[in-house]
């Protein structure tokens, strides 16, 4: 993607990421399964994919438009999925900043994510909380 990335540390509550259209292809899922050491047999048998894979793909897509400051750390994760996701489903992901806490030492940011399928059915929602960047020597 061309253009400058948005820096997460400049985001405020209410900021909405551009909607993302995502597809878990067989090739990408095989690469994901290899990376996390997941048995892909269940997917081959049923066509169902791990919801963690979709979350990873959505976060990868978000990283194309916004950069997380160096040293940022994942603090907590909530994930709720309402129905199964299949290979090649077309998923629309919308994400927004829902909380920002700034103090002298820690900057906490919470991003909420909603995923819906090609039938416009909500399939999952997630909330990611992370500390933005470690300041060196802190």
């Amino acid at each position: 993607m061309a253009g400058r990335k948005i820096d997460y540390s400049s985001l405020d509550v209410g900021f909405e990421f551009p909607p993302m259209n995502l597809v878990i292809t067989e090739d990408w899922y095989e690469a994901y399964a290899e990376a996390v050491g997941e048995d892909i047999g269940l997917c081959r048998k049923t066509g169902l994919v791990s919801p963690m894979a979709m979350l990873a793909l959505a976060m990868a897509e978000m990283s194309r438009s916004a950069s997380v400051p160096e040293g940022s750390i994942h603090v907590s994760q909530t994930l709720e999925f309402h129905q199964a996701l299949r290979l090649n489903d077309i998923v629309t992901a919308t994400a927004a900043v829902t909380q920002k806490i700034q103090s002298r030492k820690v900057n906490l940011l919470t991003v909420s994510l909603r995923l819906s399928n090609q039938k416009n059915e909500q399939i999952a929602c997630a909330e990611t909380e992370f500390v933005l960047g470690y300041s060196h020597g802190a």
Partner: protein
Amino acid sequence: MELKGASLKALTAGTDLPLLQKTITQADIDRYARVSGDFNPIHISPEYARSTPLGTTVAHGMLLLAYISQVMTKAFGTAWLEKGKMYARFKAPARPGDDISISGKITKVDSHEAKTTVHCEIFCRNQNGEELVISQTEVQVT
């Protein structure tokens, strides 16, 4: 997927979930960075990591959550892929060379009308027994 008969009866509070053990390597972390697009240097640059309070690179939190999800899939099959919830809190980082174990148990089984929901608690610990991730999960099995 619906669990039936003996499988469903086996779902009682206190039942252990399948144990998963992994050794984290920098190659694992690099592989996850490529697939997730998360090339934050705290994950992939030992030189950068040395200059931070963490001192070493650390695994992506999402990689550890993928392991937790694998435990749930082993225990509950497609039921986990169809309807589930996870809340996870990261307590400490997983570092290259760590031998981690992901273990958990059923904490509660709720049956209401035709629905059965299984609640679990899953821990990800390193070789020193230090808790890296604490997670509560729920899966609807019928």
